[in-house]
């Protein structure tokens, strides 16, 4: 039956995709027949979440290897889709196009960083960790270097990085649920949490894998359909990725014509918090090489150290499949990432070009304030205009928008039916849920497997271990939701911090564990502890007004942390004795794909 399911995967997900497309068509017919926008939004979110819950229920399991690594039988391409959903968070989905829209080139370092990191994953780590046969990332650290302290430190780094990340994701599910279901944010956060737990609670990694594939399909349709539709509607080209060069140069032309007028601090006080104007060139290079490269580098090394991504490659049937699967993951990510700049271009041009019917710059302020969609998004606190110079006409520097509006509002501005907005809400929900699931599972698994089973009670039976794992899942989820409900940090900032924390503590201990035989326990402990402490210290210093050095900012503090980690690890390793013969042999074994994995099938 199980083998049967794996063989039938293309068929199962083919039917699912067809069913989802049919659902979109039914909804658009319902819209024509007068269904309200609110009902459509509720239908989209409720329908998709119900399907994920059913998949989560059908994937329930009582076996350790199914719970921790989905039985190691996830085919290459499907694991690629699951990883892509795991990877692309609410921030990628909702905020990325907005970031590109406002910050241009300087922001696009994130695109390069969040894709280039997969080259490091494929070549330095994933296949070797798959051969190792571990359940969690700390499992590798603990076995390779030996000792409870190294294992425990790996759990600490993992928890700090993943928890920083997960609060942002639960926050995003809450935001979308509160808009779509029309309930207050404080309750919506818990609705989001319950949806997340429905996917992972019963089936662990197996449940998360199959829901993530389903979520990827929803989120990619929800992202690409509007981009293609808008592009065609505007007459910009039927395949936007290859055809927007004229639009890009038109934006540059308009920017030169309008100029970037700086607003006075007094005027800016009027603008609601979180909204921004267009102050940077769209396609020109507006950052120094080091600012761009340091941010890209931090994101790349962070990618290779984030445990919720790495553990997806523990689920493939073989080492060979793990390598290929990284390629597929990046391909599926590429589909969305390469579309975000196109959406930003279309969105910006449609708003600022006075010759287009949707263009608002150059119109009179009162005319703009009378537009339906302006009123809607102004009410949602995502758009704002003000006549600073008192000439009655809207100038480029007098128009402000929230980052999320690029994805959320552009379909409406371009005149697409409301069904698309419902679809986008379902896509954002899928993106945030899938990432939150992966992260909560990574933390809960590390604590239940590495702290509880390996350190506290090594004789625990499977049934008891899985109960502990599930209880932790709920506890960590609630802790995350509680912090998310307080709304302390912005979504994007905390996501970037998570990468920096992960690379500070884990990048070199992981990489050198495979590539440097001489690396030993003392070195790894020093690398993880000093890396994390110095990275966090740098962040706190800069946040409290410290000047920083070498152009390392609070977004790239991982560069400092990981440099300290590398030096500490090498120096301490060389000062202490080499690892014993058994460990050296273990490293040799990890380096070849054939033969038994280091850790047994059930451990």
């Amino acid at each position, binding site marked *: 039956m199980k083998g049967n399911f794996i063989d039938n995967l293309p068929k199962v997900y083919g039917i699912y995709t067809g069913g989802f497309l049919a659902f979109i068509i039914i909804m658009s017919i319902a819209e024509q027949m007068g269904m309200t926008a609110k009902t459509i939004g509720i239908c989209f979110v409720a329908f998709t979440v119900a399907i994920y819950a059913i998949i989560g229920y059908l994937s329930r399991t009582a076996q350790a290897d199914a719970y921790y690594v989905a039985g190691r039988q996830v*085919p*290459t391409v499907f694991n690629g889709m699951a990883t892509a959903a795991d990877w692309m968070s609410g921030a990628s989905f909702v905020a990325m196009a907005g970031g590109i829209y406002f910050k241009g*080139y300087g922001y*696009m*370092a994130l*695109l*390069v*960083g969040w*894709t*280039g990191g*997969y*080259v*490091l994953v*494929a*070549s*330095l780590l994933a*296949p070797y960790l798959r051969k190792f046969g571990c359940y969690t990332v700390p499992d590798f650290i603990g076995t390779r270097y030996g000792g409870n302290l190294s294992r425990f430190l790996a759990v600490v780094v993992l928890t700090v990085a993943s928890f920083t990340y997960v609060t942002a994701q639960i926050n995003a599910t809450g935001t979308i649920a509160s808009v779509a279901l029309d309930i207050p944010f404080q309750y919506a956060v818990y609705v989001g949490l319950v949806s997340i737990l429905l996917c992972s609670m019963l089936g662990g990694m197996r449940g998360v894998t199959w829901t993530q594939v389903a979520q990827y399909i929803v989120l990619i349709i929800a992202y690409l359909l509007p981009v293609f539709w808008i592009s065609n509607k505007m007459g910009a080209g039927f395949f936007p*990725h*290859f*055809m*927007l*060069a*004229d639009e*890009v*140069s038109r934006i540059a032309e308009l920017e030169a014509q309008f100029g970037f007028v700086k607003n006075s601090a007094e005027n800016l006080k009027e603008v609601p918090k979180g909204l921004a104007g267009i102050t940077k060139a769209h*396609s*020109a*290079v507006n*950052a120094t*090489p080091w600012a*761009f*490269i340091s941010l*890209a*580098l931090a994101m*790349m090394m962070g990618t290779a150290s984030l445990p919720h991504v790495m553990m997806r490659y523990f689920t493939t*049937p*073989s*080492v*060979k*499949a793990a*390598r*290929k699967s*990284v*390629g597929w993951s*990046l*391909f599926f990510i*590429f589909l969305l*990432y*390469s579309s975000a*700049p*196109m959406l930003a271009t279309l969105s910006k041009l449609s708003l600022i070009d006075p010759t287009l019917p949707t263009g608002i710059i150059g119109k009179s302020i009162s005319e703009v304030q009378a537009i339906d969609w302006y009123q809607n998004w102004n009410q949602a606190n995502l758009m704002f205009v003000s006549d600073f110079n008192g000439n009655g006409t809207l100038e480029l520097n007098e128009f402000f928008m929230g980052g999320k509006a690029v994805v959320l509002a552009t379909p409406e501005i371009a005149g697409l039916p409301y069904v698309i907005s419902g679809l986008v809400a379902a896509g954002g929900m899928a993106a945030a849920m899938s990432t939150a699931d992966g992260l909560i599972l990574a933390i809960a698994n590390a604590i239940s497997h590495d702290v509880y089973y390996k350190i506290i009670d090594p004789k625990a039976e499977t049934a008891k271990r899985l109960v502990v794992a599930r209880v932790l899942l709920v506890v960590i989820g609630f802790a995350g939701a509680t912090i998310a409900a307080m709304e302390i940090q912005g979504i994007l900032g905390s996501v970037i911090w998570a990468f920096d924390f992960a690379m500070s503590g884990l990048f070199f201990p992981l990489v050198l564990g495979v590539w440097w035989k001489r690396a030993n326990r003392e070195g790894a402990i020093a690398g993880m502890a000093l890396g994390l402490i110095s990275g966090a210290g740098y962040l706190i210093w800069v946040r409290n007004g410290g000047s920083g050095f070498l152009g390392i900012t609070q977004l790239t503090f991982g560069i400092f942390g990981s440099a300290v980690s590398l030096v500490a690890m090498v120096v301490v390793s060389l000062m202490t004795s080499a690892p014993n013969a058994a460990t050296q042999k273990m490293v*040799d074994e990890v*380096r*070849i*794909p*054939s033969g038994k994995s280091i850790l047994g099938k059930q451990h």
Partner: protein
Amino acid sequence: MSKQEQHWEKSRGLLFMTLAIWFVFSIGIFLFGAEMNEVTGPFGYPLTYWFTCQGSLGAFVILIFWFANRQEKIDEEFGFSERGDD
């Protein structure tokens, strides 16, 4: 040199080559971002802009598949590849 040492030497060579190509597309070209953006790139986009939107991203996808195939060949050559799965 044992079979395993030879295998590792070749694997390491492939790693360095992969990382060199990765370096060019993730770091190297952005050292000259401002100069390169004056040039018109594929599909008519400014060149550096195109690399950040599509070029580098696509290069990484191709690079990973290329790396995976080369590594598989190396594993086969020394008889270290796994059997009977995909």
